[in-house]
């Protein structure tokens, strides 16, 4: 142990390992990572599987029983979809306070599943575009 401490090579390796651990710890504790962990823990098993595979998940509106697709993102990321999964109309709404994507998506899910008309009453609609699931554009 004493020899290990005195070796400059070992010290450099140890420092590199510590920096690596620090990077991992920082990334896992970033607000973005925390938001995604919270989101995943509140999704149903079906929604979680869909989100892990496609970076979006579907919810059913509690009032109209319409289907919505919530894409990864924090704005213009909600689409009302038809039976074939095609976007019919986009809805832009989010919680105040510059929340991370995971938090915003979870708030959108809960709002649509528990107070759909209330959420749509504050939302702005926009024409849907065919776009890859991970891409979103600012309102």
């Amino acid at each position, binding site marked *: 142990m004493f020899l290990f401490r005195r070796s400059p090579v070992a010290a450099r390796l140890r420092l590199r390992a510590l920096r690596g651990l620090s990077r991992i710890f920082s990334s896992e504790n*970033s*607000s*973005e*990572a*925390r*938001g995604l962990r*919270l989101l995943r823990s*509140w999704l*149903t*098993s079906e929604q979680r599987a869909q989100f892990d595979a496609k970076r979006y998940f579907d919810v059913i509106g509690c009032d109209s029983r319409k289907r919505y697709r919530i894409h990864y993102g924090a*704005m*213009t990321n909600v689409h009302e979809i038809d039976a074939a999964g095609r976007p019919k109309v986009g809805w*832009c*709404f*989010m*919680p*105040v*306070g*510059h*929340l*991370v994507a*995971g*938090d915003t998506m*979870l*708030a959108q*899910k*809960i*709002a649509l*599943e*528990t*107070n759909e008309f*209330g*959420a749509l009453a*504050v*939302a*702005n609609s926009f024409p849907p575009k065919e776009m890859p699931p991970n891409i979103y554009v600012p*309102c």
Partner: protein
Amino acid sequence: MATQIVMDHTGDTRHYFDAKDAQALAKAEEQFKKLTGDGFTAAVRTSAGEVTRIRTFDPTAEETLFFPRLVGG
């Protein structure tokens, strides 16, 4: 331990409390009233994983989630 999870710019802030402790429970109820009074929505999960919005404090809830009021983008 019961938890109140409040969404914020850090991801979330968690308040843990012992639901069997009357004083802690009263403090949690006070926090619930303050947050919902400030416009936060409170939600809990049922055992089946279904999400329910609540308007009054549920002392039996293991986890209560709060998110800020919604606005159009």
